[in-house]
């Protein structure tokens, strides 16, 4: 049933755009390498903003050029890559698990509840950046995703799930604003923007160290659900009959999302729509098989996030745009388009 809906969504027959997994993975890896290099050589500001400026600086003052590369641009690029990968993968798993093409961490409130957890930890718990910060985000995501699964997991109804996401999103956004208004920080009002729109600007290697191990655990948990997701396309009962322990699958999916999204949001804020757009674009290329979609979505998420983060540095605004603005500009029209197509195919 889900496959039909997906086919109807894209208007394509199964397998028409399918490419061999090796070719797809190799292509995405090549794209990632290119974008990573571009990200490392994209600067901002009148001094080192141009593409070749860092190379020019490295001839006059190699130490400073290295400092900029290793301490400013490397953490930023690494974080964009890994956070994008985490969001792309979580999106693919949530879509497979809920058998719903509109499932996505930010739309479902998993990201905003991570922000609430991180905000609570940051301003009231540990008092600033600490290795405990991602755990606040993870707790938030875990609770939100579990609620979601209880509310929307049983029914195949898209509307119920999206409405549950809207409710969780509104509640957590309100609570985040409330927490920030009580925060002693004089900048709290401004920092709401960071937690809602996300940014990789001026992150340090410490942020990489505190979030990457947790995201890696999340990847392992999420990737382990691949085969069960394939079975789930035939329905929960069939999947159980095939020997999959659905409770374990769901738990791994929730925990994996919590590790990935919670850790990511704690250091970069909420970046929406990556988990929606990426699996959707890649789905025809893997023959609509949710299990085979996971690795490409991880790579594709990384690529989209790197591209968006290069975008905020290249777009000449006096204040740097938040990366969440760019992903929302791409993602929200895409989301509307999906809704229009869904309405046509499911009267």
């Amino acid at each position, binding site marked *: 049933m889900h496959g039909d809906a997906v086919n109807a969504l894209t208007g394509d027959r199964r397998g028409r755009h399918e490419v061999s997994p090796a070719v797809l993975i190799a292509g995405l890896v090549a794209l990632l390498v290119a974008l990573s290099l571009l990200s490392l050589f994209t*600067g*901002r500001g009148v*001094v*080192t903003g141009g593409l070749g400026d860092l190379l020019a600086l490295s001839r006059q*003052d190699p130490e400073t050029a290295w400092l900029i590369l290793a301490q400013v641009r490397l953490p930023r690029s690494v974080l964009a890559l890994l956070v994008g990968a985490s969001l792309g993968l979580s999106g693919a798993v949530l879509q497979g698990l809920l058998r719903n093409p509109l499932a996505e961490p930010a739309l479902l409130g998993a990201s905003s509840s991570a922000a609430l957890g991180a905000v609570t930890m*940051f301003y009231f718990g540990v008092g600033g950046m600490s290795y405990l910060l991602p755990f606040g985000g993870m707790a938030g995501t875990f609770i939100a995703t579990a609620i979601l699964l209880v509310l929307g997991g049983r029914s195949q109804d898209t509307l119920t799930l999206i409405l549950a996401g809207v409710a969780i999103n509104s509640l957590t956004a309100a609570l985040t604003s409330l927490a920030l208004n009580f925060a002693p*920080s*004089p*900048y709290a009002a401004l*920092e709401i923007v960071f937690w809602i729109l996300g940014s990789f600007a001026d992150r340090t290697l410490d942020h990489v160290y505190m979030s990457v191990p947790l995201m890696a655990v999340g990847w392992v948990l999420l990737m382990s659900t691949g085969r069960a997701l394939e079975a789930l396309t035939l329905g929960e009962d069939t999947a159980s009959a095939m020997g999959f322990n659905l409770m374990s699958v769901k738990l791994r999916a929730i925990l994996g999302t919590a590790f990935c999204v919670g850790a990511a949001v704690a250091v970069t804020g909420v970046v929406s729509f990556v988990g929606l757009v990426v699996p959707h674009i890649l789905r025809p290329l893997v023959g609509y098989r949710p299990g085979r979609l996971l690795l490409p979505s991880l790579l594709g998420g990384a690529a989209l996030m790197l591209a968006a983060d290069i975008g905020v540095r290249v777009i000449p605004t006096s204040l740097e745009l938040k990366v969440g603005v760019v992903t929302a500009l791409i993602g929200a029209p895409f989301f509307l388009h999906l809704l229009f197509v869904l309405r046509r195919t499911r009267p």
Partner: protein
Amino acid sequence: MIKSWAQWLLVLLLFAVRPAVAEGPQRIVSMNLCTDQLALMLAGSERIASVSFLGADPAESALAHMTEGIAVNHGLAEEVIAARPDLVLAGRYTTSFAKAMLRRLNYKVVEVDNPDTISGIRDILTLVGDAVGEPERAVALLDDMTRRLAAVADQARGRSRHSAIIYDANGFTVGRPGLADEVMTLTGLINKAPELGIGAYGQVPLESMLAVKPDIIVHFLYRPGVPSLSSMSIQHPALQVMLNGRTPVFVPGRLFTCGTPLIADAAEAMAAALIQSGAW
């Protein structure tokens, strides 16, 4: 003997000219941090009926200690009306709806700019001095400010001129025109922000900062010890590498917020911080 008689005469004359109770508005309400400070300096605490909540906060205003016992407002028309003011001081760009309503109700509202140059401070001090009926006090405050700024400039003379950039919360910096820029020039610092295309106020990218390598980073101290993302920018490890063991120059941010004669305190604080950091 004659000299002493002359002195008595002078004192009598002064009493005759100057009434015991100051003239001018007796219930001044200020709706803005900067006008709070101007009102306190010019009219003193007794004639002020209400100050803004920021003006009463020691983290925001160096004159908060003078507001004890004065009612606090949040820029709302209702609070202002309840204070029965005979003069309302407000900022040019803030609380615009409240200002419009108070004008409709025939209250006397004086709007005051927040100048970004020291010469601009002279203009608004004269304006507010006249409004509160203390023109001579305004002149005295200006003379005092001018004298103290000159003393700081004297102190700076002959010392080596360092390049510097203000790197405040979220990487914000002050270019030209700017009160902090004038204070930097006065203390012999060369502000590099204008070279980076920064106007009055703007964000300096971290990598520009590293490439320009100023001798000194100036940071406004503002509610230290309270966790915020914004104030973490100064702790970036790349900046620590660039500073190579030197410490940033920390100055109290509240002295630089408003264009008032407190800018003399700001200049003195900058000089003291330069001495403390070893730059002087």
